[in-house]
């Protein structure tokens, strides 16, 4: 089993008196794509936010590189924030700032000495990756929800983090944009980044996931490698996972045949 990037130990999250996440323990493996799945309202997003240190657990610990997020010093916390990013389900762009400022703020916070020309180049690069062609001077409200989502994605990539949290990354995106997101996530996966995703999309799960956590009623029902969980759950997910395996095997065989003939 590979080393864990983020580990939740006996985490319980309360909203008022309501227990959204109950005594959950899970380790998200380093350099792999983990998917959190479960029914709507099962506590997936809250679990993700707890893992990202955006929700403080009532009980338990969230460990990053062995350090409890709740007990980190300012310097350690800033290092964690620089190394991680979060894509929100509803984009959560800063409405009173331009698209440029939305993308520039993480750079201004973590790399204050970066020359403007280099910051601009980084911003141009991430907007190119997400396929955004509109002005950077406009505000988020002037964009469609799909474009806002892509900018939110660009904001998460601008610091080139090693750990990316995504809450329903395909929500409010059209087919073309989903393909682009999938491509970017595959690039990130190849680059060895740790990616933790909340999604219902079986295709996304089958294409990307190395590790799956199943959440129900705020509790961690099971977690493990994708094949194992797909076998357990069966249905559409299992079909998708098998199809991806067959396709990947066919691609590998074609590559082998091509290199053999050369």
């Amino acid at each position, binding site marked *: 089993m590979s080393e864990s990037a983020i580990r939740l130990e006996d985490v319980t999250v309360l909203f008022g008196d309501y227990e959204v996440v109950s005594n959950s323990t899970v380790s998200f493996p380093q350099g792999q794509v983990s998917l959190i799945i479960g029914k709507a309202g099962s506590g997936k997003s809250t679990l993700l936010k707890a893992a990202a240190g955006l929700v403080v657990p009532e009980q338990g610990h969230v460990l990053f590189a062995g350090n409890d997020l709740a007990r980190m010093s300012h310097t350690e916390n800033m290092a964690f924030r*620089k190394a991680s*990013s979060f894509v929100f389900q509803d984009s959560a762009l800063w409405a009173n700032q331009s698209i440029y400022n939305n993308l520039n703020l993480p750079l201004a916070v973590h790399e204050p000495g970066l020359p403007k020309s280099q910051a601009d180049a980084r911003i141009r690069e991430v907007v190119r990756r997400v396929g955004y062609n509109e002005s950077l001077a406009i505000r988020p409200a002037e964009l469609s929800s799909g474009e806002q989502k892509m900018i939110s994605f660009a904001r998460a990539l601008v610091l080139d983090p090693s750990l990316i949290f995504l809450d329903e990354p395909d929500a409010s995106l059209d087919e073309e944009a989903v393909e682009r997101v999938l491509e970017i996530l595959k690039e990130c996966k190849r680059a060895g980044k740790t990616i933790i995703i909340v999604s219902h999309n079986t295709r996304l799960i089958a294409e990307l996931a190395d590790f799956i956590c199943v959440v129900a009623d705020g509790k961690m029902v099971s977690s493990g490698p994708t094949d194992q969980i797909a076998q357990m759950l069966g249905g559409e997910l299992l079909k998708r996972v098998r199809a991806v395996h067959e396709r990947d095997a066919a691609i590998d065989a074609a590559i082998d045949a091509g290199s053999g003939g050369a």
Partner: protein
Amino acid sequence: MRWTSGAVHPILSSMNFVTALGHRTIDRFREAVYALGFFGRVLTETVLFVRRKQVGFKVLVMQILFTGVEALSISAILAMGIGAVINIVGLSLLPQFGQGRLMYVILIAIITRELGPLLTAFIIIARSGTAIATELGGMVVSHEIEAYISVGVDPLSYLVVPRFLGVTVSCFFLNIYFNFFGLLGSYGVLRIIKPLPFAEYFQGLVGALNGIDLAAGLVKSLVFGVLISVVATYQGFSVMRATTEVPQAGIRAVGQSFTAIIIADAVITAVSYLV
């Protein structure tokens, strides 16, 4: 009366009332402690904000622009109007009792010590207090606050401290501006109704002015600025998830700010008269 098994026994009913009252008191006490902790963190972060080179500096400038600069015209109109009314009433009534010179003492007491800081605070509550509470509440609902945390920006440092400093500084200078227009600007209005040499008017004002009047007014404006900004930001962050909570936070910010500044006004006035 016979107690039947279906009804709640009167003793149990009164016990429930006491229990509910106890829970409510504990909740209020916890909330008060939390609010004090929030205020303490705002003060700590303010010191750090001044020391560090902060990205929130632009937010501070924008807050001063919105709270201070954009309120100049309404403050001037209000100050001149109030000053003129006090002048007219004073000049009409006081000479009848042979106390014409008292007009200046009353003018200074009312404008500098009381109405200047209070009306400036009212203007700021109406414009900025509501705006800050609803803006921050909206940001909580749309997860913008979480987005700040996710990129390593402390919302208290980036969103609260610039508003705290901006509102407090604006309240202080807007009060001085209000006094200027209330005392001197109103002379222009007064002249239309009652011709009075400016030198006589000005000397009368200077003669009536003392250090305690000035200090009390300035201290009040600073305290009011602190109270309005802390209450508004605290209420903004009290929003949890629903958009319907946002206007409620705005209403609470206005109500609590009014209450807080009236209490603070009474305390500072009492202390200033005791000094």
